[in-house]
């Protein structure tokens, strides 16, 4: 047991805080609009230049080889400083861990530096109209083009976050037409400017064009677009979800800073912050703390070579529902002003996606019950 940070970790924190205080921009438009996305790209490039874009990556790719503890510290400072959303996050947090694990050195060298520098912008292509929670129902297919040395992709991906603004997509395609469910899928990287690819942006709940549909018709990608083995895409995609880098830890800093803002809101609301509302504010703050502590336990496990395994499902359920409760509390503090389109109502609408994406909380609860508690599948 030691809940103190080392001198070097504290120095890391100080450096991050200082840089963020000096550099965090104000008043950017939402990164999920065309205008705001461009503004956010500038911010990403600044992060990259100062080597804050991918702190845990190797120095050669623009990182600092930060430990997981340092990554947590950076995230805490990042949210504390009110820094902008990371429009590059799907590449950095979803694709990169997979490349680090099973990508070839050539793929890593080709993809990661440009991802870190926000030159290539990655969106995910998991969901399809018929495959949401049930990812194994993927129908998009890839047909071998032996002559051209690659694959021809056909199908439709949807609910692709910021797809309309990105340059590349990663996702699963069915390479074995006879296969069913989890078998016969392959993990591909697809440039969105390839011939045969059409992207149509559409609105999310908050009115931003944050989603896209990606239509593929015989779009060609070369062999080096395949990550891992052909037909082994499911395993490739799943392997990193439970692993260290692919932990998809939602940074505790995000909720701690939201809870602090909530406390400020309660103070501003004076009398309107009734004892019941103040209790809910305290709950939100307590939950954010509990989430932080749970994460510290997980990071300890990982740092010592363990794996969080199915416990990451606890993580997902907790942060996503804590976020909804926190934002609801803010709306109730605001009362009739809650309906104003503003940071809190947007925060609420954004939070509502949490229990849905990255595996609905229903799926996560099944995992918790079956894999952590050991209840029977059938």
């Amino acid at each position: 047991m030691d809940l103190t940070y080392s001198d070097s970790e504290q120095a890391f924190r100080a450096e991050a805080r200082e840089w963020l205080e000096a550099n965090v921009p104000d008043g950017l438009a939402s990164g999920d609009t065309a205008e705001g996305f461009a503004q956010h790209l500038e911010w990403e490039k600044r992060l990259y230049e100062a080597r804050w874009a991918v702190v845990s990556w190797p120095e050669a790719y623009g990182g600092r080889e930060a430990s997981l503890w340092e990554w947590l510290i950076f995230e805490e400072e990042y949210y504390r400083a009110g820094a902008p959303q990371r429009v590059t996050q799907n590449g950095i947090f979803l694709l990169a861990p997979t490349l680090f694990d099973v990508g070839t050195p050539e793929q890593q060298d080709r993809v990661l530096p440009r991802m870190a520098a926000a030159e290539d912008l990655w969106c995910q292509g998991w969901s399809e109209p018929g495959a949401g929670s049930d990812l194994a129902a993927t129908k998009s297919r890839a047909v071998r083009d032996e002559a051209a040395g690659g694959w021809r992709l056909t199908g439709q991906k949807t609910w692709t976050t910021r797809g309309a603004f990105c340059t590349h997509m990663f996702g699963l395609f069915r390479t074995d037409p006879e296969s069913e469910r989890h078998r016969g899928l392959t993990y591909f990287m697809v440039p969105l400017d390839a011939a045969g690819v059409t992207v149509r942006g559409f609105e999310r709940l908050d009115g931003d064009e944050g989603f896209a549909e990606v239509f593929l018709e015989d779009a060609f990608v070369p062999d080096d677009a395949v990550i891992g083995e052909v037909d082994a895409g499911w395993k490739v995609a799943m392997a990193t979800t439970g692993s260290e880098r692919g932990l998809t830890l939602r940074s505790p800093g995000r909720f701690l800073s939201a809870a602090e803002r909530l406390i400020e809101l309660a103070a501003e609301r004076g009398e309107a912050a009734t004892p019941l509302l103040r209790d809910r504010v305290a709950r939100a703050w307590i939950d954010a703390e509990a989430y932080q502590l749970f994460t510290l336990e997980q990071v300890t496990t990982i740092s010592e070579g363990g794996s969080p395994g199915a416990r990451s499902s606890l993580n997902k359920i907790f942060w996503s529902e804590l976020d909804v409760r926190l934002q609801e509390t803010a709306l109730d503090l605001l009362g009739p002003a809650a309906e104003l389109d503003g940071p809190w109502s947007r925060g609420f609408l954004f939070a509502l996606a949490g229990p849905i994406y990255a595996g609905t909380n229903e799926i996560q609860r099944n995992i918790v019950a079956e894999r952590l508690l050991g209840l029977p599948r059938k």
Partner: protein
Amino acid sequence: MRFALTEDQAALRDAARELLARECPPAVVRKAWDGGAGASPVAAVWSKLAEMGVVGAAVPEEAGGLGLGACDVVPLLEEAGRVALPLPLVETAFVAGPLLAAAGDDGAVERLLAGDLLVACALDGAAEVPWAGDADLILVGERPGGPVSQIVGSHGGGATAGADGIARFGGALEPARSIDTARRLGVLVGSAASASGLVGGDDRGADSGPGEPPAAVEPLDAPNEACVLAWQRGALGTAGQLIGLSRALLAMTVTYAEERRQFGVPIGSFQAVKHQLANALLGVEFAAPTVLRAAWSLDSGAATVDRDVAMAKALASEAAERVAATALQAHGAIAYTTEYDLHLFAKRVWASARTWGDAEWQRARVAAALGLN
């Protein structure tokens, strides 16, 4: 003892349901998101509601209305909720209609009956005024500290649309964006204060505090009692609308859960989905009778009317919020897009659950009535 609508009440409700289903499908609601009440198919809905008598339903017969009571009108407002009617029917037909009649403002009543007057309300001291962008007349007031609501009135007069009437407030009313754009939200600038300086009803002669009412604001010549009733109708009517919204969201979700297949089966066959939807229904089914009872209490002048309305609004708000959350979760990503209709209903829920007194505030009124504070 008979706790159910009469045949006449049910027939009127069914007629309204039919008209609204025909005239106000989601495509029309979307028009209001862009163009407000003036957008062509939206304006036509209002005309038809006026023709059918719905807009003047609560106006006394001697003033030219149908002279119907809350037990008749609340079911109609539920129907308005069911289609997410993008117009201030509660405010115009249920709050303002009888209030303007009580104030003896024949001109305004006449326009209202003709479908030429849209009314917005800000009766709780809040700066935010839903429907202000389309309103010809805005009722302003303070949220009561005690059990009796004060209504503060001002009418824009003239047949001109919102902006003109608003200018006569003295203060400025700036357009603001609601999460539900159809609500044409306005914000009284510098004026939660200035509005609350305008005390109407029997108190209108009293010292109105630091901010003198701007000259253009005309106090409403209605007795205090009528103002109290108007506030109650606003909360009750909104509760009714929330019930209708809830039923629409539930129906939409059940249909989707039957059709949408994942893992080889309809998602509605998963017990987790079933139980969430059962819980959502439970909330609605136990809120709905309290809404109808509050209508009865209002019509019969029961001593408990304030408590009964408070209970109804509290339960309806909570039920609707639960339904909205459940509906979204059961749909998954598809409902998280504005291309799908669900958000038209859910956003109305999120907005209106917190107006006319949110659940906690209304429960506190019940607690007070029970001697709990």
